[in-house]
């Protein structure tokens, strides 16, 4: 299996339920599942067009689900899709995702929605409507935009 250059590993109390949710809500496909034999998942890969998120749990030690942290989390995942953003949001909502921001056009040229999965991990989805230069983005957003540090 080809491994993408950078991918997140996300912790869930119920990793198998999470994998099922990612399939139902976002159309990802579980392509690798390493069971711990006790209901937990040592390692797994949920794929979408060659990209993967890894899912593991239940967490121990210094790892936690947002469920353990009153919804707080130390990361999120952004997924850029080529088309069909609004339909994807509808599918996610029907599968039980909590939509935090409905699909809306952004001043930087993307249409974006954000949602929470059942354990409170945050996902954002974007579709490029218009490719903008840094100068154009600076104009439309009123921010300072740099392309290097």
């Amino acid at each position, binding site marked *: 299996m080809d491994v993408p*250059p*950078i991918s997140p590993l996300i912790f869930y109390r119920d990793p198998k339920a999470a994998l099922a949710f990612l399939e139902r809500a976002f159309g990802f496909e579980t392509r690798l599942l390493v069971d711990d034999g006790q209901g937990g998942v040592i390692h797994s890969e949920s794929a979408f067009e*060659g990209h*993967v998120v890894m899912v593991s749990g239940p967490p121990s030690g210094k790892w936690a689900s947002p469920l353990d942290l009153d*919804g*707080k989390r*130390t*990361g999120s995942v952004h997924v850029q899709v*080529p088309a069909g953003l609004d339909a994807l949001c509808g599918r996610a909502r029907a599968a039980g995702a909590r939509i935090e921001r409905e699909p809306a056009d952004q001043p930087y040229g993307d249409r974006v929605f954000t949602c929470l999965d059942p354990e409170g991990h945050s996902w954002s989805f974007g579709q490029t409507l218009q490719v903008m230069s840094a100068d154009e983005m600076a104009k439309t957003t009123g*921010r300072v935009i740099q392309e290097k540090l």
Partner: protein
Amino acid sequence: MPSFTPVVFYRDPMAALKWLERAFGFETSLLVTDDKGRVGHAEMSFGDGHIGVGEEWGAAELIGPAKMRSPASLDNVGTQFTRVALEDGIDQHCARAEAAGARITQRPADQFYGARVYRALDPEGHVWCFDQKISDLSLADMEKASGLTMKTSL
């Protein structure tokens, strides 16, 4: 082209960008700041991969309000980590990271699944896991080496 971008949150995202460039060789590709110089959003690239960097309280713009935290604000607890594939030079990469102040929690070592792996903590406690492929193994090979059962669907 669809892509997955893990986003990580920091108390001091500007310091984090500088550190991630120095320690891991990531490159800042987009930096959005307001008129006070605060980071609204940033993106870094490394080879064909991307990460997002945000401020723990100020990340509302892209992601939504109030629940984003640096591990430094959660007693070093984390809800996700980032895995980065290296083409080669993993031992040198680890040495560079350590010289820049990364805490190496797992030294480079060969794993049963055909990769050499090291793990590092950045200054705010995010975990980074770097791996480099060392051999092509089938799932059957990995099962044999580990005693684990590996499935290719849910």
